[in-house]
């Protein structure tokens, strides 16, 4: 379990697919999350879906030679997100301001989630979840930003609700082909 929550550690190959019912539950959770984010219901998202001990990480992706020991990213170096609950809540507070100009007029969002794989872990009620996403943001007349990527989530059930405890986000871009990231992934 501690290993699973280590933000610097990849899932590797998981081979304990959950039963269909759990898979449906987790899938529904992911779809609900995407819908909240589409609607910019960030406060509700952090209050109801995010665990207080969340680790939320999205490193920048370097272009490196295959034999480079550092690899494409490294925890502890620069990142777009490397958040605990405190950092996420600061970001949400900004969205709540009417003068958050990058979102006023409103941005039109679509968070598409696919390639979902749900695996059991050594702990009951803790799931390791792979997914892929397409994030589309469009604003004003024709300003459009598209980000594709993959996620490695750990969801934990407490008091009957699933919450996100860990999320690793890997986008496919090297240079971010956008001026900002006014959303969550």
């Amino acid at each position, binding site marked *: 379990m501690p290993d699973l929550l280590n933000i610097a550690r990849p899932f590797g190959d998981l081979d304990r697919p959950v039963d269909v019912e759990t898979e449906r539950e987790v899938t529904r959770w992911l779809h609900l999350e995407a819908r909240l984010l589409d609607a910019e219901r960030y406060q509700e998202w952090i209050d109801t879906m995010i665990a207080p001990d969340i680790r939320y990480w999205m490193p920048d992706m*370097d272009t490196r030679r295959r034999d480079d020991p*550092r690899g494409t990213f490294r925890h502890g170096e*620069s990142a777009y997100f490397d958040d605990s609950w405190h950092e996420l809540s*600061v*970001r949400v507070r900004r969205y709540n301001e009417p*003068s958050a100009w*990058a979102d006023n007029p409103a941005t039109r969002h679509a968070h598409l989630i696919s390639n979902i794989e749900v695996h059991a872990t050594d702990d009951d009620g803790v799931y390791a979840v792979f997914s892929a996403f397409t994030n589309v943001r469009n604003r004003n007349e024709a*300003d459009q930003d598209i980000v594709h990527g993959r996620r490695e989530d750990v969801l934990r059930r407490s008091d009957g609700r699933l919450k996100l405890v860990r999320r690793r986000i890997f986008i496919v871009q090297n240079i*971010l*082909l956008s001026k900002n990231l006014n959303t969550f992934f």
Partner: protein
Amino acid sequence: MRPVYPRASSYPDFARLVDRDKAQVDRRVFVDKAIYQAELQQIFARAWLFLAHESQIPNPGDFLRTSMGEDDVIVVRQRDKTVKAFLNSCPHRGNRVCMVDAGTRARGFICNYHGWSFGIDGALRGTDGKVYETDETFEKAQIGLTPVAQIDSYKGLIFATFDPQAPSLEDFFGPFTWYLDIMLDNDEGGTEFVGGAIRSIIDCNWKFPAENFVGDILHAFWTHQSGAQAILGGAVDLGKRYDELAFQASVYGHGIESNLDKVGNTRTLGYPELVDYVFDLSEKARDRLGDIRARAIGAISSCTVFPNFSFLPGQNTFRVWHPRGPGKIELVAWTLVNKNAPEHIKELYRKGTMMTFSPGGVFEMDDGENWEYATRVNEGFVTRHQPLHYALGLGTEDAASEMPGHVHRGSLNDANQRLFYTRWAEFMKYDNWTDLQNGETAPPVRRAQAAE
């Protein structure tokens, strides 16, 4: 095959687009393609441009790829510990020889096209073997990657120029180094960059972010109200002694504005431990830097080194606005820390710049769209014939100041931006460094000497 360093020309018509008397700038400088090409020739092929921090490439063979203007450049540490920089382009068919952002202990660079191989010194070491070697007319020794004309470093920051005639890096800065030392020399042991870099694309002209950092604290109160509210729970406070202490200063178009409030910028990173660290640092740095500069280490302030290298004291984001056409930039941003800072302080700076001045940061978030539309609206033919207003603080020159350069009272001021565009006009107008180093933007003392 000798390196070809393009010669400068003179574009007096473009220089006139900056009107010093009316304090106006013609908007065509932000969208016109011919003006942009002239910028690549007059500014980016001549000025000293930021390449890297020494700490990014500590060992022989360590390298990174960056840009000088739109030119792709490799920066690599040599076996004798010096640093060289070359155009990232094979002299055979022009392909890039280095495809990656960075790496360590490189032996050299081999072109993927025909296997031409270059040492870390840029010299051609060989080809794909057995073909050129049998061609008796082939002279390997004459071929290599095109080196920059000059390379030098200042307190950890490596710069280069494509102009063999350019003055030394020290002369290019002039007395502006007095201000650079606020960040680069406030603690023994020097500075380093945190690992990695954040790169992003903004569809704006490169001069908008450069002028923003050279002296536009004004925008912070409106643009960044939401970010300040999120982190501070209220507006940025300029402090009680603003009238007495805040200033703008400019030398050769490089500019800094500061409020001397000690920790205003650092406070916006949102971590009280960093504020404590900077308070202590500021006290300690008094002997090293004197009172004024010690107060500036974490103060509400911003800085641009002409043309396109900017940083924020106190928030420690360092960045280059690489031009990618008149309406597009690639922004590369790093975090600078003192080498001797405790590890947890370095870690908080890494997080602090991420939370504020990175694409998902609560301040940078709201900058991009302003610069994009300030650029894009000028596609309108009539619109771009309306000049822009740069006349805040016309009567604020502080000629009695003992600080170097052109000093103006009050950081809420367009003074540095006027001098930034005046420097831009000097680069457009002059084809030689004698004129470039003795024009209106030269430090006042030097101008007085030149007039005699």
